[in-house]
């Protein structure tokens, strides 16, 4: 198994719209590690997730990923006219995996024939999490993963996250709500 840490942030600084959000941020997530980013709205939680995903470049410092990253944020990235099964199969094809285990883990298997634009907010959230669960990425980047989820959805999310960590994966989650992550470090942004 690859022992390099799935995510390593060294003295990372982030500037958005001319405003310094945070600087000197160090974080290492080894296999099985998890961290929850907390903080008020607009403090840079989502920016940190996007930095870790490589979508934003840090103003200073270094971001290092090993073993790929799966991102679940507010954008569903599913073609609205396609059925959920086909939309997720497209991403599974890009990832070289099978969409079915992720769909089963998040309890959306029965929605496979439903067009994406007919799904509710919570169902869409489950679908984006199912895509991350189906990918073989070692690092999960979850931006407000429990938004819109019901109790059953939160339970499934917790189980999926636990299974991922048990397999040596790492999780960086941004949330203003409590997440069921045993022994996760808390990273408070201010």
């Amino acid at each position, binding site marked *: 198994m690859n022992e390099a840490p799935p995510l390593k942030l060294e003295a990372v600084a982030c500037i958005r719209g001319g405003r310094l959000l945070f600087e000197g941020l160090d974080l290492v997530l080894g296999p099985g590690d998890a961290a929850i980013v907390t903080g008020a709205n607009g403090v840079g939680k989502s920016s940190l997730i996007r930095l870790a995903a490589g979508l934003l470049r840090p103003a200073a410092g270094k971001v290092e990923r090993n073993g790929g990253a799966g*991102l679940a944020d507010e*954008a569903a*990235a599913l073609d*609205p006219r396609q059925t959920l099964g086909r939309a997720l199969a497209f991403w599974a094809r890009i990832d070289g995996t099978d969409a079915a285990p992720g769909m089963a883990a998040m309890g959306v298997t029965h929605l496979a024939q439903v067009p994406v634009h007919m799904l509710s907010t919570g169902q869409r959230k489950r679908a984006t999490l199912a895509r991350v669960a189906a990918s073989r990425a070692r690092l999960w980047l979850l931006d407000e993963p429990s938004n819109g989820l019901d109790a059953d959805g939160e339970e499934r999310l917790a189980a999926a996250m636990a299974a991922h960590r048990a397999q040596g994966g790492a999780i960086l989650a941004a949330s203003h709500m409590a997440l069921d992550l045993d022994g996760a470090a808390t990273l408070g942004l201010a």
Partner: protein
Amino acid sequence: MIALASRELRLAMAGGNALLPLIFFLLVATLFPFAVGPDGPLLARVGGGALWMAAMLAALLPVDRLIEPDRASGVLDQLSTRGIGEETVVAAKLVGHWLSFGPPLMLAAVPAAALMRLPAELLLRLELGLLVGTPGLAALTLMVAALTAGLRSAGALAGLLLLPLAVPILIFGAGMIGSENPSALKLLAAVSLLLVAVTPFAAGAAIRAARD
């Protein structure tokens, strides 16, 4: 890459998106003889240029559905997170977009040329020009779509950006219909090749810049 290109083709076919430029192209070809009158020789002389104008304007129509929906829905972010470069994404989109635009336009050019009373050898040269020139037009549309993605009134701005840049294609495309000289075709191919080669990098940089 193949998955991306075929997705692009599927999106173009869904809901008749690819038909819109074709109908527009044929409509212009139908209206033009009404405007200049049923003078056969005159139509044959100016028809080729008019069809190139129509092709250029038809290329502008898909500009708002090529990049912006994928940017807004997070598809581009998801691809980038998977380590797929923006240049690769744009190149795949270019292949998919051209397949839904170039060959259908070449088919539509046959009835359009009949409406313009173009003789057979001119139609042949028009088709050859479209084969060489439509990749350039498709690339230009994609580049402008990436540059204007996420902007307000992107459609109007796209027209102002695309049409001047398409002038070389128009000049050499229409030019090669009227002359036996092969240099117009060579210059058309050069312009088209340049646009196809530059677009993945220019559009890729535009997509990255739009994230900041």
